[in-house]
């Protein structure tokens, strides 16, 4: 490889690495964190998000609340801006279904000018356990697989086929009797 080429390649690599580091590290100049706390009564569930930076509460930025779902994040309620104490309060739906009752609740501060993007997760057993099975999947039905045929159909078909084929075989056996009757009459 020529010296010139070597030089060009190293330049390219450096540029790339620089680009990467800038994008990766450009995130934050100032750090901020969100702390989640939860409260509930008989009829309500509330999520409290406290936004602080270096120990001091931050007022003003809007916090989004989400619940983690299979493919994406489900937004909960509207965005709430933190009040003077840095607190944002969200009403949480009481009827959100979940397989085992566990929900992953995420609070996000998105692309803030000063603080960048901040995010916190918490797991709470605030989901309503639902029946996860399809209502009639394991029932016997006409649309089910062959092991789950409706009982009346199974019984009726076995009975009908049984009776008819019994008769047919009986008649077919008469042919043998005819043959025998022929032999007997030989004498």
């Amino acid at each position, binding site marked *: 490889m020529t010296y010139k080429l070597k030089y060009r*390649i190293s330049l390219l690599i450096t540029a790339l690495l620089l680009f990467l580091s800038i994008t990766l590290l450009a995130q934050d100049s100032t750090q901020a964190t969100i702390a989640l706390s939860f409260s509930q009564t008989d009829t309500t569930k509330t999520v409290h998000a406290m936004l602080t930076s270096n120990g001091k509460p931050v007022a003003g930025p809007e916090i989004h609340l989400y619940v983690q779902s299979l*493919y994406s994040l489900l937004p909960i309620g509207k965005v709430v801006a933190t009040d003077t104490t840095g607190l944002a309060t969200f009403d949480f739906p009481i009827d*959100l279904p979940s397989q085992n009752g566990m929900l992953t609740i995420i609070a996000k501060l998105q692309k803030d000018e000063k603080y960048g993007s901040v995010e916190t997760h918490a797991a709470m057993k605030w989901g309503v356990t639902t029946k996860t099975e399809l209502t009639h999947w394991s029932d016997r039905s006409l649309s089910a697989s*062959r092991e789950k045929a409706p009982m009346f159909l199974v019984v009726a078909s076995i009975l009908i086929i049984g009776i008819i084929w019994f008769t047919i075989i009986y008649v077919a056996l008469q042919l043998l009797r005819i043959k025998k009757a022929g032999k007997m009459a030989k004498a």
Partner: protein
Amino acid sequence: MEKEKTDGSARRKFLKFGLLAGGATLAGLGIQQQLHADTIPPSGKKIKLMTADGKLVEVDTNHMHHHVAENAISNLQARQGIEGKKFVMVIDLARCANARNCVEGCQKMHHKKSPVEWIKVNKMQDARDSAPYWMAQPCFHCDNPPCTKVCPVDATFKRNDGVVLIDNERCIGCRFCMAACPYNARVFNWGANWGKGEDSTASPNACVTTCNDSIETSLQDKMGTVSKCDFCVDMARQSKLPDCVTSCPNGTLFFGDANEDVVTNGEDTFRLSELIRDRAGYRYLEELGTEPRVYYLPAVERQFPFEEDKEIHNPKE
């Protein structure tokens, strides 16, 4: 001395190529993220990638869009379904503008080409004087499926996660399910490699071989058997949305798990029950009693005015 020098330079060459490739991968992925929403025609732009066994290959940029091949799922698992899920789809007719990206995305995903379509976009007009609208129709994966009722060999079946699949190894090609489906969701493989799209993946270790592993992958279409939309359940196992959902530029199709009561189109996420309640969701031909798992949101407050088709689609076999 001579030998050492050549060895050393070879190593350096290798390292530099490696770094170049690594950086290119990252850059490429970044570009891919940007262009995620639209379908990319074969751009002709090639990218050098290092495969797992150290080979350097050139692949077209859009092929990194393909999903990772999954591990083999047994037939029994494929008939049971993904545990704890109840897949459901919502299609917002106020957004459908006949872009047909869903059709093309699905065709690309399942290696199909025109005129074989697993999701159809039809022009609908409810009454003589009512306004026409475009309607995307995949298979509805009905809860009271007329197709599974009539299959003589149990080749098509309903799973516990709501999806209706076809076992192409067992299908005898009687086409009774096609006659029974009132939505014409099913297509038939009338010949060998029927509607088989060009195998756009240049590298042989991509989908085609490993993706024949189970009934879920739906890439095992055989001549003389039936096939249809499968709600991309193999992608669901990797928490990826079906191709039709992600391809749509208008976010018309929403997909999700009814057990979580959440559907998303990749960008917006809603609670399924709220969406249907607030937007008056309904099901197509509800009176037939098939109980489809696809809801439609009426074409009101449309995002686009209705436009007739400018071209003829699927003009020939």
